[in-house]
C-alpha cells in the first residue's frame, strides 16, 4: 500500500536551502501569484440559503463544465486550480462524470450539512423512562432495531469505501458521499441506542439479510453500487421507515423514524438522479445495470424471506401475538411488502427504466404481480 514521494525533502539540499533562504531573506518566488486561473466573483443567489456550491458553479470552477471524461486532473488539486507538472496520481477509479453524477447532487449535500441531527440529544430519550412495553412488542421492536443496525453498518462502509476512488474533480459527489457516511453512522447509533433502551437488549442477527447486504458493497462500479444501495436497498428501507413510523409503539420511536426518513429520502433522491443521469449519458451501461438489478432484486426478495425481520414486523403491526393481532399484522406486512416492490418499480420507471415492469425481464416483478393478485383476492390493496 505504501507510496513514496518523489523526493525525501529532508535530503533534498536545494529544497531545504531554498526554504531557509526565503525565511532568512524574504526573497520569494511568487510565481503562484500569476497562476493561469479564472477570476470569478460568486455571490449567494438566495441570502437565506447562504453561499452554496451551486453559487460556485461558474466557469472552470463549476460542476456544469466538468467534462464527461476527466483527463486533465488525477491529482489532489482542487478543480479549477493551476496544476503543475509533478503532482501525484490520486489513483481514482471513477473519472467519468456519468458514472457518478446526478442532477442536484450539490443541493443534496447542502441539505445534508444543514440537517445534521444528533442521536444523543435530538431524541427525547427521557420520555422512555417508565415505559414498559409488553414482551411481544418489546422484543419485536428490539429485533427490528437489531436488523436496522446491521443494515446501517453496510450503508456506512459501502459509500465510504468508494469515496477515495472518485476523482477529486467530483468534489460535490465526494462531499455528498461523506455526508451519507455520517448519516448512516448516526442511524446505526440511534437504532442501537433504541434497542438498548427497550429492556430486551439486542436480539438476533439476520444471516440471510447479511449475505444479501454484502452484495451491496462488492459491486464492480460506482453506478452499480449506487443502484443497489441508493435505489434498491435504501428505497426499500425508506418504505420500511415510513411503515415503522406508522407502527411505532411510542412517540420517541416516531421521532426516530421521522428523522431517519429525512436522511434516507436524500440518499434515495441522489440515487434516482444518478440512475437517470447514467442512463441518459452512458446508454451502453443500461444492460450492465439491468444485470446488476437482477442480483439486487434477488437480494431484495431475500430480505422479505428473512423471518426474524418479517415476524417482528408482523407482531409490531398487529400490536401483539394473539391470533387476531397476527392476522392484522400479516395484512399490514403484506401491504408493506407490496408497497416496497411497487415503489421500487415506480422509481425505476421515473428514472428511465420502465422495461423492468415486465415479468419476463424481472423475476421480482413477476413475484410482485403474483403477490398483488393473491392479496387482492384477500381484499388487501396497496
Amino acid at each position, binding site marked *: 500500500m505504501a507510496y*513514496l514521494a518523489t523526493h525525501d*525533502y*529532508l535530503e533534498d539540499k536545494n529544497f531545504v536551502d531554498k*526554504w531557509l533562504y526565503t*525565511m532568512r*531573506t524574504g526573497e*520569494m*518566488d511568487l*510565481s503562484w*501569484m500569476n497562476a493561469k*486561473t*479564472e477570476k470569478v466573483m*460568486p*455571490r449567494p443567489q438566495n441570502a437565506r440559503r*447562504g*453561499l452554496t456550491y451551486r453559487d*460556485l458553479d*461558474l466557469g472552470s470552477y463549476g460542476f456544469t463544465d466538468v467534462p464527461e471524461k476527466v483527463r486533465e486532473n488525477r491529482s*489532489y*488539486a482542487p478543480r479549477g486550480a*493551476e496544476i503543475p507538472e509533478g*503532482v501525484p496520481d*490520486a489513483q481514482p477509479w471513477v473519472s467519468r462524470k456519468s458514472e457518478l453524477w446526478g442532477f442536484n447532487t450539490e443541493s443534496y*449535500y*447542502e441539505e445534508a*450539512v444543514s440537517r445534521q441531527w444528533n*442521536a*444523543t440529544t435530538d*431524541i427525547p*430519550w427521557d420520555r422512555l423512562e417508565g415505559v414498559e412495553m409488553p414482551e411481544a412488542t418489546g422484543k419485536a421492536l428490539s429485533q427490528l432495531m437489531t436488523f436496522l*443496525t*446491521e443494515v446501517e*453498518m453496510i450503508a456506512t462502509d459501502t459509500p*465510504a469505501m468508494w*469515496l477515495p476512488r472518485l476523482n*477529486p474533480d467530483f*468534489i460535490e459527489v*465526494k*462531499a455528498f458521499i*461523506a*455526508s451519507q*457516511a*455520517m448519516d448512516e453512522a448516526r442511524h446505526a447509533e440511534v437504532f442501537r*441506542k433504541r434497542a438498548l433502551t427497550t*429492556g430486551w*437488549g*439486542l436480539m*438476533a442477527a439476520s*444471516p*440471510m439479510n*447479511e449475505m444479501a*447486504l*454484502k452484495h451491496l458493497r462488492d459491486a464492480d462500479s460506482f453506478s452499480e453500487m449506487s443502484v443497489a444501495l441508493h435505489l434498491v436497498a435504501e428505497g426499500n428501507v425508506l418504505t420500511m421507515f415510513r411503515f415503522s413510523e406508522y407502527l411505532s409503539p411510542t412517540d420517541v420511536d416516531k421521532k426516530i423514524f421521522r428523522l431517519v426518513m429525512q436522511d434516507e429520502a436524500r440518499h434515495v433522491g441522489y440515487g434516482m438522479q444518478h440512475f437517470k443521469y447514467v442512463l441518459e449519458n452512458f446508454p451502453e451501461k443500461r444492460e450492465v445495470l439491468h444485470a446488476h438489478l437482477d442480483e439486487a432484486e434477488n437480494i431484495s426478495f431475500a430480505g422479505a*424471506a428473512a*423471518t426474524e425481520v418479517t*415476524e417482528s414486523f408482523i*407482531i409490531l403491526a398487529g400490536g401483539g401475538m394473539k391470533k387476531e393481532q397476527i392476522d392484522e399484522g400479516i395484512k399490514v406486512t403484506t401491504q408493506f411488502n407490496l408497497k416496497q416492490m411497487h415503489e421500487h418499480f415506480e422509481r425505476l420507471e421515473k428514472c428511465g427504466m420502465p422495461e423492468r415492469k415486465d415479468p419476463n425481464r424481472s*423475476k421480482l416483478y*413477476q*413475484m410482485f404481480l403474483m403477490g398483488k393478485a393473491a392479496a387482492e383476492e384477500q381484499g388487501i390493496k396497496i
Partner: protein
Amino acid sequence: MAFYAYKDYTEDQEVLEAMNQVMAGNLGLHWFNANTEKIKGHASEPQRGLTYDDLNIGSYGYSELPEYLRTSQSMVARGSDKSGKLPDMGYVVNRKSDVWSDNVCELYEEAKARRWAPATDILWGALGEKPLGETLEVACAQLYTFLQECELISLDFPSRWVALVNQDFIEQKSFMCSQMLDASRLLEVFRKRALYGGAGLKRASVNAEQGLKEWLWAETYPQGSVSINIALAGILLAIFRHVAAFAPSVTDRAIMRKAMQDSGRWVSYGTGCLRYHLEHQPGQRVALHEYLDESEHVMLGIIGSPEFLEPLIIISGGGLEKDQVKAGRVAVSKLIQLMMREYFERLDYAGLGGRTERSRLQHVIERIQVA
C-alpha cells in the same frame, strides 16, 4: 460482480415455503428467545442526552471488547445473538489497540454537537462589504487552494480505512465518519472562501501533494493515523490558529475558528490512539520510530512549499512591503517552531518520546534564521 448471493431466492423452494408459512400466520419465532443480555440503558445525565458511554454495559459495551477480534467478521451489531451462516466482510483491522482511543466516544459526541454549515454559519457578506487589497486577497486565494489539497487527503484517509475496520469498533468507526464530514465541510469552506474573494484559485503544490500522498498511503492504520491525525492535523491546527490571529478579515477569522475546533478533535483522537496503541503494543515503538524517521520529511515538503510558505508570510505581515515581509517571516518562523514543538510534545505524551533528539526534521528546523 464480486459477490453473488448464495441462491436465487425467487426460485428457492425452502425460502418460498418459509415465507408462505410466516404469511399464513405460522410464526417460527426463533429470534424471540435470542441469547443476549437484557438491559435498559439510561442517560446518566439527561441534559447531555443518551451517549455511547451510557451504553457501555456488559456485552454491549466497548470496555469488554477483547484485544483480538477473532470471531466477528460480519455486520452483526456487537452484543446480538449470532447464529447461522454469516458473511466474512474481510476486515483487516481486528485489533483494538490498532484503532482505539479512550476518548473516541466523547470526540464523536462532540463532533455531532458542534456541527456547523459553511453555507450559512460564515458571514460571507462581511467580506463582500470590506474586500481585501489585491495582494492580500491573492495570498488568501493561494493559501485556501493549498488548504483544499490538505483537506482532500484528510477526507480520503478515514474513507480508505473505515470499511476495513471491524464492525465491533462501532464507536470508532462512527468517529471516522464524523471525520469524513469534518473534512468535506472544511474542503467546502476553503473553496468557497477562495472563490468568494474574487481572485480565483491559485496553484496546486507538487511538494505538498507528493508528501501528503505518502502519508495517505501508509501501510498500516497506526502509521497512517500518526501521519494524518497527529502530524497533518497538528500542522493544520497550528495554521488555523495562526491565521485566526493574523486574519485579514472577520470572515477569515470565523472560518479559522470553526476549522480549529474540528481539527482539534483529530489531533486529540490521533494522540489518544497512538497512546493506546503503544500501551498495548509496546513492541511497535521501534517500528513507529523507524516509520517516522522515514516519513517525517513530508512535513518539510508541506511547510516548505512556496505555495504555502509565501502566502502565509504575506498574510502574517499584512502585505509585500519589505517591513511587512519581515514581520511575516518572524511570525511564520515562530509558527513553525511552535508547530514542531507541539508535534514532538504530542508524540512524547503518547509514549513516543525522544523524537526531538532523533528526528532529522529538528536539525533542519534549528537552522531557520530570520534576518
